[in-house]
């Protein structure tokens, strides 16, 4: 009789323990998903920050980098260089090699610079957008696109840096 009572108590105890563990597990899974989401948002900010400060495309005058300004000639050169299949100047330079080099930083993302005023033009900086994805975070940064071949008064144009990060 006493034994049966003990077993019944234990049974109830383990049922309560199991339910608590299930509840805790669900809560934990939710917090992990939240952490992953937060991490993904951070990744989007990191890539946007990185692109807007790349010496490869940022305006420079005697090696002085200008904040929030991209050089049109550098953008054109970059587009030719990093585009998949683009020919390089030799082994280890340009083309797929260059794309792979920047892939370690930009991962699954698409980076586009769009000139919006006075003209509308688009430069694809990097495109590694996966066909199937769960989520995409776009980040837009307004900036100046400077064309050093034009007269000083018409060198600057208004543009937007669009960074789309996928997962």
């Amino acid at each position, binding site marked *: 009789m*006493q034994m049966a009572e*003990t077993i019944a108590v234990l049974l109830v105890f383990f049922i309560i323990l199991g339910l608590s563990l299930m509840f805790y597990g669900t809560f934990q899974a939710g917090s992990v998903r939240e952490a992953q989401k937060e991490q993904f948002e*951070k990744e989007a900010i990191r890539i946007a920050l990185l692109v807007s400060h790349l010496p*490869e495309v940022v305006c420079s005058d005697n090696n002085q980098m200008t904040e929030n300004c991209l050089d049109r000639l*550098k953008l*054109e050169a970059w587009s030719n260089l990093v585009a998949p299949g683009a020919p390089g100047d030799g082994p280890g*330079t340009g083309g797929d090699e*260059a794309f792979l080099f920047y892939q370690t930083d930009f991962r699954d993302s698409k980076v586009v610079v769009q000139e919006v005023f006075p003209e509308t033009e688009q430069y694809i900086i990097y495109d590694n957008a996966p066909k199937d994805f769960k989520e995409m975070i776009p980040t837009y940064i307004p900036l100046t696109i400077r064309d050093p*071949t034009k007269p000083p008064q018409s060198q600057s144009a208004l543009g937007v840096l669009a960074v789309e990060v996928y997962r």
Partner: protein
Amino acid sequence: METDASEATAVSFPMIASLLQITRSVRLLSVSREDTKRTKAQVDVHFNWIFVLIIGAVILTFFLFVISRQKAVSDQRLAADVLADMELILTGQGISVGREDTVAIPELPLQFTCDDYGMLTMTRRIGNAVLFAPSSVESERLLTWTQEWDIPFKVSNLVYLTSPDIRYYLIYDPADDMATQFAKELNSSLPERMNKRMKSIREAITITDEGDDRVRLVYIFPAEERLTLPAGLRNLNDKAVSALAIRKDLAGADAYRGGASLGFYKKRGDQLEQDTIATPRGDRVGVYPSLGKGPLYGAVFADDFGLYECSMRKAIRRMKLIAMIHNQRANTLLTLASPRCVTYYSIAPFTSFALLNPDDLTNRIRAPGAVSELFSTAEILENLNRNTIRASCTTLY
């Protein structure tokens, strides 16, 4: 007596005898039932205790398991958070120059390899960030510092990491004016919060273990080929002591711009032995040329030659790509340039940078002029850029 009487009666009356027999049997049976009950109760009590003990042990084991799992999970989560923050710190440091920060981190071993850095079992990719750090840091504080690498156009920001638990000794010969000057300059250039001391070559013999996690000896222009390990550091773990020898290659040449070589050393027993790596060609190298102030500072921070060479290889790959972009830009400028600017754009030697082979830098026997050529080309480019400003042309970089 009673038995004898009853037996006598039984003999006389068989019926009564049978009744007596039954009564005795019943009595005996009831006695044995009571005994069984008592024994069973005793066994029950014992089994109950054993059962409680087993179940108690099972519950205790279960909770101990849950606690240990939870500790492991929370450690992993902490490591993941730290690494995620580290990634943002590295990005932040990578875009601002001359920044010096102290970051609080949990005192868990933070390991650095060529491609990634990790804590416990979690790792993060370094990407293209040019990072110079000890192979392992275990401290509550992480010191970060950033410098720019221009050659002469901007290539990348170099990020340096260390901890206050790593002590650096800048060892120089006071009789050698150049070494003294260089040591003083290096000491004032490195971050203020860095745990560093200047020591003359005579004082260096007396260096002892002061309880630091690691000790890095930086010998400035040492006269001897072999470096001597201070006796006070001989008892330390081999991984805790490393050295760098900055040797002047060419008299009169700028030590920062290709005029010096950087030799990496590791403690092995009672000696400092050169740290070498295998090249793709199969030979072993342990010396790297100084490619500017930033890379030279990097050699002070990185205690492993493999890590240093890998970081420099990344920086050079990036330099090649940026040189190609500048080259294309110069070509476009050339097509639209006014006659006074044409010369600068047509002779800008960006292609020399784009075609540089990183292997040539570590193998100066096969490619003896690679480094001096790089810096002379850099000088030409610097002059050309200066001239574009004088001629009111768009600058080359």
